[in-house]
Protein backbone atom coordinates (compact mmCIF):
# COMPACT_ATOMS: atom_id res chain seq x y z
CA UNK A 1 0.00 0.00 0.00
CA UNK A 2 1.22 3.47 -0.84
CA UNK A 3 -0.49 6.83 -0.86
CA UNK A 4 1.08 9.43 -3.14
CA UNK A 5 0.33 13.13 -3.65
CA UNK A 6 1.61 14.37 -6.99
CA UNK A 7 1.73 18.12 -7.47
CA UNK A 8 -1.54 18.57 -5.61
CA UNK A 9 -3.08 22.05 -5.43
CA UNK A 10 -6.46 23.11 -4.14
CA UNK A 11 -8.11 26.43 -4.86
CA UNK A 12 -11.19 27.86 -3.25
CA UNK A 13 -13.35 30.58 -4.68
CA UNK A 14 -13.62 33.80 -2.68
CA UNK A 15 -16.97 35.66 -2.48
CA UNK A 16 -15.59 38.19 -4.98
CA UNK A 17 -15.03 35.37 -7.52
CA UNK A 18 -11.24 35.26 -7.32
CA UNK A 19 -9.52 32.04 -6.29
CA UNK A 20 -7.37 31.46 -3.22
CA UNK A 21 -4.81 28.66 -3.09
CA UNK A 22 -5.27 26.51 0.02
CA UNK A 23 -2.60 23.99 -1.01
CA UNK A 24 0.14 24.57 -3.58
CA UNK A 25 1.89 21.79 -5.48
CA UNK A 26 2.02 19.36 -2.59
CA UNK A 27 4.17 16.27 -3.17
CA UNK A 28 4.32 13.45 -0.65
CA UNK A 29 4.75 9.69 -0.63
CA UNK A 30 3.49 7.61 2.27
CA UNK A 31 4.28 3.90 2.34
CA UNK A 32 2.82 1.00 4.26
CA UNK A 33 4.24 0.63 7.75
CA UNK A 34 4.88 4.36 8.05
CA UNK A 35 3.52 6.85 10.51
CA UNK A 36 3.43 10.42 9.22
CA UNK A 37 2.86 13.53 11.26
CA UNK A 38 1.70 16.71 9.62
CA UNK A 39 2.16 19.87 11.61
CA UNK A 40 1.49 23.49 10.85
CA UNK A 41 -0.21 26.56 12.19
CA UNK A 42 -3.97 26.82 12.55
CA UNK A 43 -5.43 27.50 9.10
CA UNK A 44 -2.36 26.13 7.31
CA UNK A 45 -4.52 23.58 5.47
CA UNK A 46 -3.81 20.43 7.49
CA UNK A 47 -7.46 19.37 7.66
CA UNK A 48 -7.93 20.07 3.95
CA UNK A 49 -4.89 17.95 3.09
CA UNK A 50 -6.22 15.10 5.24
CA UNK A 51 -9.62 15.35 3.55
CA UNK A 52 -7.89 15.15 0.16
CA UNK A 53 -5.90 12.09 1.26
CA UNK A 54 -9.08 10.48 2.55
CA UNK A 55 -10.86 11.08 -0.77
CA UNK A 56 -13.40 13.46 0.74
CA UNK A 57 -12.24 16.29 -1.51
CA UNK A 58 -10.79 16.38 -4.99
CA UNK A 59 -7.68 18.45 -5.84
CA UNK A 60 -7.97 21.32 -8.33
CA UNK A 61 -4.65 20.26 -9.85
CA UNK A 62 -2.44 17.20 -9.58
CA UNK A 63 -3.54 13.80 -8.40
CA UNK A 64 -3.57 11.46 -5.43
CA UNK A 65 -2.89 7.81 -6.07
CA UNK A 66 -3.41 4.81 -3.81
CA UNK A 67 -1.48 1.73 -4.90
CA UNK A 68 -0.98 3.46 -8.25
CA UNK A 69 -4.74 4.05 -8.76
CA UNK A 70 -5.69 7.71 -9.35
CA UNK A 71 -8.36 7.89 -6.65
CA UNK A 72 -8.64 11.68 -6.88
CA UNK A 73 -9.93 11.35 -10.46
CA UNK A 74 -12.52 8.78 -9.51
CA UNK A 75 -16.22 9.40 -9.34
CA UNK A 76 -17.76 9.63 -5.85
CA UNK A 77 -19.33 6.18 -6.25
CA UNK A 78 -15.93 4.51 -6.59
CA UNK A 79 -14.15 6.77 -4.08
CA UNK A 80 -16.80 5.97 -1.48
CA UNK A 81 -16.12 2.27 -1.94
CA UNK A 82 -12.36 2.74 -1.83
CA UNK A 83 -12.79 4.71 1.40
CA UNK A 84 -13.98 1.56 3.17
CA UNK A 85 -10.28 0.84 3.73
CA UNK A 86 -9.71 4.27 5.24
CA UNK A 87 -10.40 5.09 8.89
CA UNK A 88 -10.97 8.79 9.51
CA UNK A 89 -10.86 10.59 12.83
CA UNK A 90 -12.24 14.07 12.29
CA UNK A 91 -11.38 17.13 14.35
CA UNK A 92 -15.00 17.20 15.52
CA UNK A 93 -16.25 13.75 16.58
CA UNK A 94 -19.26 13.77 14.17
CA UNK A 95 -21.15 11.20 16.24
CA UNK A 96 -24.91 10.69 16.13
CA UNK A 97 -26.26 12.00 19.41
CA UNK A 98 -29.43 9.92 19.32
CA UNK A 99 -27.47 6.66 19.10
CA UNK A 100 -25.59 4.90 21.88
CA UNK A 101 -21.80 4.69 21.92
CA UNK A 102 -21.92 1.07 20.75
CA UNK A 103 -24.27 1.89 17.85
CA UNK A 104 -22.04 4.78 16.75
CA UNK A 105 -18.98 2.55 16.70
CA UNK A 106 -20.80 -0.18 14.76
CA UNK A 107 -22.08 2.22 12.05
CA UNK A 108 -19.17 2.06 9.54
CA UNK A 109 -19.32 -1.73 9.58
CA UNK A 110 -23.00 -1.96 8.60
CA UNK A 111 -22.44 -2.02 4.79
CA UNK A 112 -19.98 -4.89 5.15
CA UNK A 113 -22.64 -7.41 6.02
CA UNK A 114 -21.26 -8.90 9.26
CA UNK A 115 -23.67 -10.41 11.75
CA UNK A 116 -24.91 -8.17 14.56
CA UNK A 117 -23.27 -10.33 17.25
CA UNK A 118 -19.96 -10.13 15.39
CA UNK A 119 -20.32 -6.35 15.07
CA UNK A 120 -21.05 -6.01 18.77
CA UNK A 121 -17.97 -8.07 19.59
CA UNK A 122 -15.75 -5.93 17.35
CA UNK A 123 -17.21 -2.73 18.77
CA UNK A 124 -16.65 -3.91 22.36
CA UNK A 125 -13.03 -4.71 21.52
CA UNK A 126 -12.55 -1.24 20.00
CA UNK A 127 -14.12 0.40 23.05
CA UNK A 128 -11.97 -1.73 25.37
CA UNK A 129 -8.86 -0.48 23.60
CA UNK A 130 -9.69 3.05 24.72
CA UNK A 131 -10.96 2.07 28.17
CA UNK A 132 -14.49 3.26 27.46
CA UNK A 133 -16.38 -0.04 27.28
CA UNK A 134 -18.38 1.03 30.36
CA UNK A 135 -19.96 3.77 28.20
CA UNK A 136 -21.18 1.33 25.53
CA UNK A 137 -24.90 1.73 26.22
CA UNK A 138 -24.90 5.45 26.97
CA UNK A 139 -26.26 7.99 24.55
CA UNK A 140 -23.50 10.04 22.97
CA UNK A 141 -25.04 13.34 24.03
CA UNK A 142 -24.25 12.59 27.70
CA UNK A 143 -20.49 12.19 27.07
CA UNK A 144 -17.69 14.70 27.64
CA UNK A 145 -15.60 16.08 24.75
CA UNK A 146 -12.68 13.76 25.53
CA UNK A 147 -14.94 10.70 25.71
CA UNK A 148 -16.59 11.61 22.41
CA UNK A 149 -13.16 11.84 20.83
CA UNK A 150 -12.24 8.35 22.04
CA UNK A 151 -15.52 7.01 20.67
CA UNK A 152 -14.73 8.56 17.29
CA UNK A 153 -11.29 6.91 17.32
CA UNK A 154 -12.87 3.56 18.20
CA UNK A 155 -15.30 4.04 15.29
CA UNK A 156 -12.39 4.73 12.92
CA UNK A 157 -10.40 1.65 13.92
CA UNK A 158 -13.22 -0.90 14.19
CA UNK A 159 -12.79 -1.89 10.51
CA UNK A 160 -9.00 -2.25 10.93
CA UNK A 161 -8.34 0.18 8.10
CA UNK A 162 -5.27 0.03 5.86
CA UNK A 163 -5.04 3.83 6.04
CA UNK A 164 -5.79 5.68 9.25
CA UNK A 165 -6.15 9.43 9.02
CA UNK A 166 -6.47 11.41 12.23
CA UNK A 167 -7.07 15.11 12.64
CA UNK A 168 -5.98 16.35 16.08
CA UNK A 169 -6.90 13.07 17.79
CA UNK A 170 -5.64 14.20 21.21
CA UNK A 171 -7.01 17.74 21.20
CA UNK A 172 -9.51 17.13 24.01
CA UNK A 173 -7.42 14.69 26.06
CA UNK A 174 -5.59 15.15 29.33
CA UNK A 175 -1.94 14.04 29.50
CA UNK A 176 -2.83 10.50 30.56
CA UNK A 177 -5.45 10.09 27.83
CA UNK A 178 -3.17 11.58 25.18
CA UNK A 179 -0.31 9.28 26.16
CA UNK A 180 -2.61 6.29 25.91
CA UNK A 181 -3.87 7.30 22.44
CA UNK A 182 -0.37 8.02 21.10
CA UNK A 183 0.76 4.69 22.47
CA UNK A 184 -2.06 2.90 20.61
CA UNK A 185 -1.16 4.69 17.37
CA UNK A 186 2.44 3.49 17.75
CA UNK A 187 1.17 -0.08 18.16
CA UNK A 188 -1.04 0.16 15.05
CA UNK A 189 1.98 0.90 12.88
CA UNK A 190 1.79 -2.50 11.23
CA UNK A 191 3.62 -3.47 8.02
CA UNK A 192 0.44 -3.04 5.94
CA UNK A 193 -0.95 0.18 7.41
CA UNK A 194 -0.35 3.88 6.82
CA UNK A 195 -1.12 6.26 9.66
CA UNK A 196 -1.31 9.99 9.06
CA UNK A 197 -1.83 12.35 11.96
CA UNK A 198 -2.28 16.10 11.76
CA UNK A 199 -1.58 17.71 15.10
CA UNK A 200 -0.01 20.75 16.61
CA UNK A 201 -0.19 19.07 20.01
CA UNK A 202 3.50 18.99 21.13
CA UNK A 203 2.91 15.65 22.93
CA UNK A 204 3.06 13.90 19.52
CA UNK A 205 6.46 15.40 18.76
CA UNK A 206 7.72 14.55 22.24
CA UNK A 207 6.81 10.90 21.71
CA UNK A 208 9.72 9.80 19.58
CA UNK A 209 8.36 6.47 18.33
CA UNK A 210 5.38 7.43 16.19
CA UNK A 211 6.52 9.69 13.36
CA UNK A 212 8.68 8.14 10.66
CA UNK A 213 7.96 11.20 8.55
CA UNK A 214 7.51 14.70 9.88
CA UNK A 215 5.85 17.04 7.44
CA UNK A 216 5.35 20.76 7.88
CA UNK A 217 2.60 22.64 6.09
CA UNK A 218 3.42 26.30 5.63
CA UNK A 219 1.76 28.81 3.30
CA UNK A 220 0.01 25.93 1.49
CA UNK A 221 3.29 24.12 0.77
CA UNK A 222 4.38 20.88 2.34
CA UNK A 223 7.98 20.10 3.24
CA UNK A 224 9.57 17.23 5.04
CA UNK A 225 11.44 17.94 8.25
CA UNK A 226 14.62 15.97 8.87
Amino acid at each position, binding site marked *: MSLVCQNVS*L*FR*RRPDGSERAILKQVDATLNAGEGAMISGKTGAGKTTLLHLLAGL*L*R*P*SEGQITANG*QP*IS*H*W*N*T*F*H*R*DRWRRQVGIIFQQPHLINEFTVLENVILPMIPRGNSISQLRKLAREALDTFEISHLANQKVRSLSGGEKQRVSIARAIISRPAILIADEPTAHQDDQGAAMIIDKFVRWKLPHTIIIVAAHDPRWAEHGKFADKRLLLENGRLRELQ
Partner: protein
Amino acid sequence: MIWHPLLIAVVVGDALGLLLWLGAAGTAFQITVKWAPQSAHREQIQLERRTETARLSAKFSLAVFVLSSILLIIGITNVLPAIVPGAMCGTGVLQATTGLGGRALIYRFLAFFIMMLWLSHEKLDLSRPDAPLTRYNSRLLLLALPFFLLAVITTFRGILRIDSHQAVNCCAIVYDQFGNLAAARQIAGIPNAFWVRTFWMLTILMLLCAVWSLKTKRTNGETAVGFLAVISIVWVPIAAITLVRVHAAYFYQVLHHHCPWCLFLPEHKFVGVPLFGLLIIITLEGPLSYLAAKTAANFPDLLPRAKRRSKLAGLRLILAAVTYAGMVAFPAIYWKLLYGVWLE
Protein backbone atom coordinates in the same frame (compact mmCIF):
# COMPACT_ATOMS: atom_id res chain seq x y z
CA MET B 1 -63.73 3.08 -11.81
CA ILE B 2 -63.62 -0.27 -10.04
CA TRP B 3 -61.99 -0.05 -6.63
CA HIS B 4 -60.33 -3.41 -6.97
CA PRO B 5 -57.28 -3.86 -4.66
CA LEU B 6 -55.14 -4.84 -7.64
CA LEU B 7 -55.99 -1.66 -9.50
CA ILE B 8 -55.37 0.42 -6.39
CA ALA B 9 -51.97 -1.30 -6.10
CA VAL B 10 -51.25 -0.41 -9.74
CA VAL B 11 -52.20 3.24 -9.23
CA VAL B 12 -50.18 3.54 -5.99
CA GLY B 13 -47.20 1.75 -7.54
CA ASP B 14 -47.33 4.00 -10.60
CA ALA B 15 -47.56 7.14 -8.48
CA LEU B 16 -44.66 6.05 -6.26
CA GLY B 17 -42.53 5.06 -9.25
CA LEU B 18 -43.27 8.33 -11.03
CA LEU B 19 -42.41 10.39 -7.94
CA LEU B 20 -39.09 8.59 -7.57
CA TRP B 21 -38.31 9.00 -11.27
CA LEU B 22 -39.23 12.70 -11.10
CA GLY B 23 -36.83 13.15 -8.19
CA ALA B 24 -34.07 11.45 -10.15
CA ALA B 25 -34.93 13.51 -13.23
CA GLY B 26 -34.34 16.72 -11.23
CA THR B 27 -30.76 15.62 -10.57
CA ALA B 28 -30.41 14.37 -14.15
CA PHE B 29 -31.32 17.83 -15.39
CA GLN B 30 -28.66 19.39 -13.15
CA ILE B 31 -26.13 16.90 -14.51
CA THR B 32 -26.91 17.84 -18.11
CA VAL B 33 -26.41 21.52 -17.23
CA LYS B 34 -23.65 21.55 -14.62
CA TRP B 35 -21.68 18.28 -14.79
CA ALA B 36 -17.96 19.05 -14.54
CA PRO B 37 -16.04 15.81 -14.01
CA GLN B 38 -12.73 16.19 -12.15
CA SER B 39 -13.74 19.61 -10.83
CA ALA B 40 -12.64 20.24 -7.25
CA HIS B 41 -15.56 22.51 -6.49
CA ARG B 42 -17.97 21.65 -3.74
CA GLU B 43 -20.95 21.88 -6.12
CA GLN B 44 -19.54 19.07 -8.27
CA ILE B 45 -18.78 16.83 -5.28
CA GLN B 46 -22.31 17.44 -4.00
CA LEU B 47 -23.73 16.77 -7.46
CA GLU B 48 -21.83 13.46 -7.57
CA ARG B 49 -23.39 12.51 -4.25
CA ARG B 50 -26.83 13.50 -5.47
CA THR B 51 -26.17 11.43 -8.60
CA GLU B 52 -25.78 8.40 -6.36
CA THR B 53 -29.11 9.11 -4.69
CA ALA B 54 -30.76 9.71 -8.07
CA ARG B 55 -29.34 6.44 -9.39
CA LEU B 56 -30.77 4.50 -6.46
CA SER B 57 -34.06 6.34 -6.69
CA ALA B 58 -34.39 5.61 -10.43
CA LYS B 59 -33.54 1.93 -9.93
CA PHE B 60 -36.17 1.65 -7.23
CA SER B 61 -38.63 3.48 -9.46
CA LEU B 62 -37.94 1.04 -12.29
CA ALA B 63 -38.52 -1.92 -9.96
CA VAL B 64 -41.83 -0.44 -8.76
CA PHE B 65 -42.87 0.36 -12.34
CA VAL B 66 -42.13 -3.19 -13.50
CA LEU B 67 -44.06 -4.57 -10.53
CA SER B 68 -47.09 -2.35 -11.17
CA SER B 69 -46.93 -3.26 -14.90
CA ILE B 70 -46.96 -6.97 -14.04
CA LEU B 71 -49.93 -6.40 -11.73
CA LEU B 72 -51.70 -4.48 -14.48
CA ILE B 73 -51.14 -7.30 -17.00
CA ILE B 74 -52.39 -9.85 -14.47
CA GLY B 75 -55.42 -7.62 -13.89
CA ILE B 76 -56.15 -7.23 -17.60
CA THR B 77 -55.69 -10.89 -18.45
CA ASN B 78 -56.99 -12.80 -15.47
CA VAL B 79 -58.74 -10.65 -12.86
CA LEU B 80 -60.80 -7.96 -14.55
CA PRO B 81 -62.47 -10.24 -17.17
CA ALA B 82 -64.47 -11.67 -14.27
CA ILE B 83 -65.65 -8.19 -13.28
CA VAL B 84 -66.26 -6.45 -16.61
CA PRO B 85 -69.57 -7.78 -18.03
CA GLY B 86 -69.07 -9.59 -21.30
CA ALA B 87 -65.28 -9.72 -21.01
CA MET B 88 -63.67 -13.13 -21.39
CA CYS B 89 -60.06 -11.99 -21.73
CA GLY B 90 -57.91 -8.87 -21.96
CA THR B 91 -59.59 -7.76 -25.18
CA GLY B 92 -62.84 -7.12 -23.31
CA VAL B 93 -61.06 -5.30 -20.50
CA LEU B 94 -59.24 -3.04 -22.96
CA GLN B 95 -62.57 -2.34 -24.68
CA ALA B 96 -63.92 -1.23 -21.31
CA THR B 97 -61.14 1.35 -21.10
CA THR B 98 -62.34 2.80 -24.44
CA GLY B 99 -58.96 2.50 -26.11
CA LEU B 100 -56.95 4.06 -23.26
CA GLY B 101 -55.80 0.66 -21.97
CA GLY B 102 -54.07 -0.22 -25.25
CA ARG B 103 -52.41 3.20 -25.42
CA ALA B 104 -51.30 2.91 -21.80
CA LEU B 105 -49.63 -0.43 -22.57
CA ILE B 106 -47.77 1.09 -25.54
CA TYR B 107 -46.55 4.05 -23.43
CA ARG B 108 -45.56 1.63 -20.69
CA PHE B 109 -43.52 -0.44 -23.07
CA LEU B 110 -41.78 2.64 -24.53
CA ALA B 111 -40.97 3.94 -21.03
CA PHE B 112 -39.75 0.49 -20.00
CA PHE B 113 -37.58 0.22 -23.11
CA ILE B 114 -35.82 3.55 -22.45
CA MET B 115 -35.52 2.75 -18.74
CA MET B 116 -33.85 -0.57 -19.55
CA LEU B 117 -31.45 1.22 -21.90
CA TRP B 118 -30.67 3.61 -19.06
CA LEU B 119 -30.13 0.72 -16.64
CA SER B 120 -27.84 -1.11 -19.02
CA HIS B 121 -25.75 2.04 -19.59
CA GLU B 122 -25.68 2.74 -15.87
CA LYS B 123 -24.03 -0.62 -15.33
CA LEU B 124 -21.49 0.20 -18.02
CA ASP B 125 -20.89 3.62 -16.50
CA LEU B 126 -20.25 2.26 -13.04
CA SER B 127 -17.68 -0.17 -14.37
CA ARG B 128 -15.26 2.78 -14.78
CA PRO B 129 -14.18 4.87 -11.78
CA ASP B 130 -14.38 8.08 -13.83
CA ALA B 131 -18.00 7.32 -14.88
CA PRO B 132 -17.74 8.64 -18.46
CA LEU B 133 -21.39 8.02 -19.37
CA THR B 134 -22.97 10.01 -16.55
CA ARG B 135 -24.15 12.90 -18.71
CA TYR B 136 -25.37 10.57 -21.49
CA ASN B 137 -27.29 8.47 -18.95
CA SER B 138 -28.91 11.51 -17.40
CA ARG B 139 -30.29 12.37 -20.87
CA LEU B 140 -31.70 8.85 -21.20
CA LEU B 141 -33.28 9.22 -17.78
CA LEU B 142 -34.89 12.49 -18.85
CA LEU B 143 -36.03 10.95 -22.15
CA ALA B 144 -37.96 8.24 -20.31
CA LEU B 145 -39.85 10.80 -18.21
CA PRO B 146 -42.53 11.92 -20.73
CA PHE B 147 -43.34 8.29 -21.63
CA PHE B 148 -43.48 7.37 -17.94
CA LEU B 149 -45.78 10.32 -17.31
CA LEU B 150 -48.02 9.41 -20.27
CA ALA B 151 -48.09 5.75 -19.18
CA VAL B 152 -49.15 6.63 -15.64
CA ILE B 153 -51.75 9.20 -16.66
CA THR B 154 -53.23 7.05 -19.44
CA THR B 155 -53.35 3.99 -17.18
CA PHE B 156 -55.15 5.99 -14.52
CA ARG B 157 -57.62 7.44 -17.03
CA GLY B 158 -58.17 3.96 -18.47
CA ILE B 159 -58.90 2.54 -15.04
CA LEU B 160 -61.37 5.37 -14.38
CA ARG B 161 -63.20 4.49 -17.60
CA ILE B 162 -63.88 0.88 -16.60
CA ASP B 163 -67.57 0.55 -15.88
CA SER B 164 -68.73 -2.68 -14.29
CA HIS B 165 -72.30 -2.05 -15.52
CA GLN B 166 -71.43 -1.55 -19.19
CA ALA B 167 -71.19 -4.76 -21.24
CA VAL B 168 -68.43 -5.26 -23.83
CA ASN B 169 -68.17 -7.55 -26.90
CA CYS B 170 -64.74 -8.93 -26.07
CA CYS B 171 -63.31 -11.40 -28.63
CA ALA B 172 -66.49 -11.27 -30.70
CA ILE B 173 -65.07 -8.18 -32.40
CA VAL B 174 -62.15 -10.32 -33.56
CA TYR B 175 -64.57 -12.28 -35.75
CA ASP B 176 -66.30 -9.12 -36.92
CA GLN B 177 -63.06 -7.92 -38.48
CA PHE B 178 -63.51 -10.19 -41.50
CA GLY B 179 -66.32 -10.27 -44.01
CA ASN B 180 -65.37 -13.74 -45.30
CA LEU B 181 -62.90 -16.56 -44.70
CA ALA B 182 -60.51 -15.39 -47.40
CA ALA B 183 -60.04 -12.08 -45.57
CA ALA B 184 -59.10 -13.97 -42.41
CA ARG B 185 -56.37 -15.81 -44.29
CA GLN B 186 -54.38 -12.72 -45.20
CA ILE B 187 -52.72 -9.77 -43.52
CA ALA B 188 -52.67 -6.45 -45.40
CA GLY B 189 -53.65 -8.27 -48.58
CA ILE B 190 -50.74 -10.70 -48.30
CA PRO B 191 -51.51 -14.39 -47.59
CA ASN B 192 -50.72 -15.75 -44.13
CA ALA B 193 -48.38 -18.34 -45.66
CA PHE B 194 -46.10 -15.56 -46.89
CA TRP B 195 -45.92 -14.01 -43.40
CA VAL B 196 -45.14 -17.38 -41.84
CA ARG B 197 -42.36 -18.05 -44.37
CA THR B 198 -40.98 -14.53 -43.77
CA PHE B 199 -41.09 -15.13 -40.03
CA TRP B 200 -39.07 -18.37 -40.26
CA MET B 201 -36.58 -16.89 -42.71
CA LEU B 202 -36.03 -13.87 -40.49
CA THR B 203 -35.68 -16.15 -37.46
CA ILE B 204 -32.89 -18.09 -39.17
CA LEU B 205 -31.27 -14.85 -40.38
CA MET B 206 -31.45 -13.33 -36.90
CA LEU B 207 -29.89 -16.41 -35.31
CA LEU B 208 -27.09 -16.38 -37.89
CA CYS B 209 -26.46 -12.69 -37.22
CA ALA B 210 -26.44 -13.32 -33.48
CA VAL B 211 -23.86 -16.10 -33.91
CA TRP B 212 -21.83 -13.80 -36.20
CA SER B 213 -21.90 -11.06 -33.54
CA LEU B 214 -20.66 -13.55 -30.94
CA LYS B 215 -17.91 -14.93 -33.19
CA THR B 216 -16.64 -11.76 -34.82
CA LYS B 217 -13.02 -10.90 -34.04
CA ARG B 218 -13.44 -7.22 -34.91
CA THR B 219 -12.85 -4.78 -32.06
CA ASN B 220 -16.45 -3.66 -31.70
CA GLY B 221 -18.27 -5.95 -34.10
CA GLU B 222 -20.55 -3.03 -34.92
CA THR B 223 -21.55 -4.34 -38.35
CA ALA B 224 -22.70 -7.70 -37.00
CA VAL B 225 -24.65 -6.24 -34.09
CA GLY B 226 -26.01 -3.50 -36.35
CA PHE B 227 -27.53 -6.14 -38.62
CA LEU B 228 -28.74 -8.03 -35.57
CA ALA B 229 -30.46 -4.94 -34.17
CA VAL B 230 -32.19 -4.13 -37.48
CA ILE B 231 -33.33 -7.73 -38.03
CA SER B 232 -34.62 -8.03 -34.46
CA ILE B 233 -36.59 -4.78 -34.87
CA VAL B 234 -38.20 -6.14 -38.07
CA TRP B 235 -38.59 -9.64 -36.61
CA VAL B 236 -40.59 -8.70 -33.50
CA PRO B 237 -43.72 -7.25 -35.22
CA ILE B 238 -43.72 -10.06 -37.79
CA ALA B 239 -43.41 -12.63 -34.99
CA ALA B 240 -46.25 -10.95 -33.09
CA ILE B 241 -48.48 -10.83 -36.21
CA THR B 242 -47.84 -14.47 -37.13
CA LEU B 243 -48.34 -15.51 -33.53
CA VAL B 244 -51.78 -13.91 -33.34
CA ARG B 245 -52.86 -14.71 -36.90
CA VAL B 246 -51.39 -18.16 -37.47
CA HIS B 247 -49.54 -19.83 -34.61
CA ALA B 248 -52.17 -19.02 -31.98
CA ALA B 249 -54.58 -21.35 -33.77
CA TYR B 250 -52.54 -24.35 -32.57
CA PHE B 251 -52.89 -23.21 -28.95
CA TYR B 252 -56.59 -22.38 -29.27
CA GLN B 253 -57.20 -25.33 -31.60
CA VAL B 254 -59.70 -23.06 -33.32
CA LEU B 255 -59.31 -21.53 -36.77
CA HIS B 256 -58.96 -17.75 -37.06
CA HIS B 257 -59.37 -16.66 -33.46
CA HIS B 258 -57.05 -13.67 -33.76
CA CYS B 259 -56.98 -12.67 -30.10
CA PRO B 260 -53.63 -12.13 -28.35
CA TRP B 261 -55.12 -11.93 -24.88
CA CYS B 262 -56.73 -15.36 -24.78
CA LEU B 263 -53.20 -16.78 -24.78
CA PHE B 264 -52.87 -15.46 -21.20
CA LEU B 265 -55.83 -17.46 -19.93
CA PRO B 266 -55.41 -20.55 -17.72
CA GLU B 267 -57.28 -22.73 -20.25
CA HIS B 268 -54.37 -22.07 -22.63
CA LYS B 269 -51.85 -22.66 -19.84
CA PHE B 270 -50.85 -18.97 -19.70
CA VAL B 271 -48.74 -19.57 -22.80
CA GLY B 272 -48.97 -15.85 -23.67
CA VAL B 273 -46.75 -15.00 -20.69
CA PRO B 274 -43.60 -16.75 -21.96
CA LEU B 275 -44.36 -15.99 -25.63
CA PHE B 276 -44.84 -12.25 -25.21
CA GLY B 277 -42.12 -12.21 -22.53
CA LEU B 278 -39.67 -13.63 -25.07
CA LEU B 279 -40.76 -11.06 -27.64
CA ILE B 280 -40.04 -8.31 -25.10
CA ILE B 281 -36.60 -9.79 -24.38
CA ILE B 282 -35.75 -9.82 -28.10
CA THR B 283 -37.07 -6.27 -28.55
CA LEU B 284 -34.74 -5.13 -25.77
CA GLU B 285 -31.64 -7.20 -26.45
CA GLY B 286 -31.35 -6.56 -30.21
CA PRO B 287 -30.97 -2.77 -29.97
CA LEU B 288 -29.03 -3.15 -26.70
CA SER B 289 -26.35 -5.26 -28.33
CA TYR B 290 -25.87 -2.54 -30.95
CA LEU B 291 -25.91 0.35 -28.49
CA ALA B 292 -23.35 -1.40 -26.26
CA ALA B 293 -21.05 -1.84 -29.27
CA LYS B 294 -21.60 1.81 -30.23
CA THR B 295 -20.74 2.90 -26.69
CA ALA B 296 -17.56 0.86 -26.87
CA ALA B 297 -16.63 2.68 -30.07
CA ASN B 298 -17.24 6.11 -28.54
CA PHE B 299 -15.69 5.37 -25.14
CA PRO B 300 -12.65 3.12 -25.63
CA ASP B 301 -12.18 2.81 -21.84
CA LEU B 302 -15.48 0.95 -21.71
CA LEU B 303 -14.57 -1.41 -24.55
CA PRO B 304 -14.11 -4.69 -22.61
CA ARG B 305 -17.24 -4.22 -20.52
CA ALA B 306 -19.37 -2.94 -23.40
CA LYS B 307 -18.22 -5.77 -25.63
CA ARG B 308 -19.15 -8.27 -22.93
CA ARG B 309 -22.59 -6.63 -22.62
CA SER B 310 -23.02 -6.74 -26.39
CA LYS B 311 -22.14 -10.44 -26.47
CA LEU B 312 -24.43 -11.15 -23.54
CA ALA B 313 -27.26 -9.45 -25.44
CA GLY B 314 -26.48 -11.62 -28.47
CA LEU B 315 -26.51 -14.75 -26.34
CA ARG B 316 -29.79 -13.83 -24.66
CA LEU B 317 -31.29 -13.08 -28.04
CA ILE B 318 -30.28 -16.50 -29.39
CA LEU B 319 -31.75 -18.26 -26.36
CA ALA B 320 -34.96 -16.24 -26.52
CA ALA B 321 -35.40 -16.68 -30.28
CA VAL B 322 -34.73 -20.45 -30.16
CA THR B 323 -37.13 -20.88 -27.25
CA TYR B 324 -39.78 -18.77 -28.97
CA ALA B 325 -39.39 -20.62 -32.26
CA GLY B 326 -39.61 -23.95 -30.44
CA MET B 327 -42.69 -22.85 -28.55
CA VAL B 328 -44.61 -21.81 -31.67
CA ALA B 329 -43.34 -24.65 -33.88
CA PHE B 330 -43.92 -27.53 -31.47
CA PRO B 331 -47.77 -27.34 -31.24
CA ALA B 332 -48.02 -26.87 -35.05
CA ILE B 333 -45.78 -29.86 -35.79
CA TYR B 334 -47.59 -31.94 -33.18
CA TRP B 335 -50.92 -31.06 -34.82
CA LYS B 336 -49.61 -31.92 -38.26
CA LEU B 337 -48.26 -35.27 -37.04
CA LEU B 338 -51.51 -36.03 -35.27
CA TYR B 339 -53.97 -34.97 -37.98
CA GLY B 340 -51.82 -34.82 -41.10
CA VAL B 341 -52.85 -31.25 -41.98
CA TRP B 342 -51.94 -27.72 -40.97
CA LEU B 343 -54.59 -25.56 -39.31
CA GLU B 344 -55.52 -23.18 -42.09
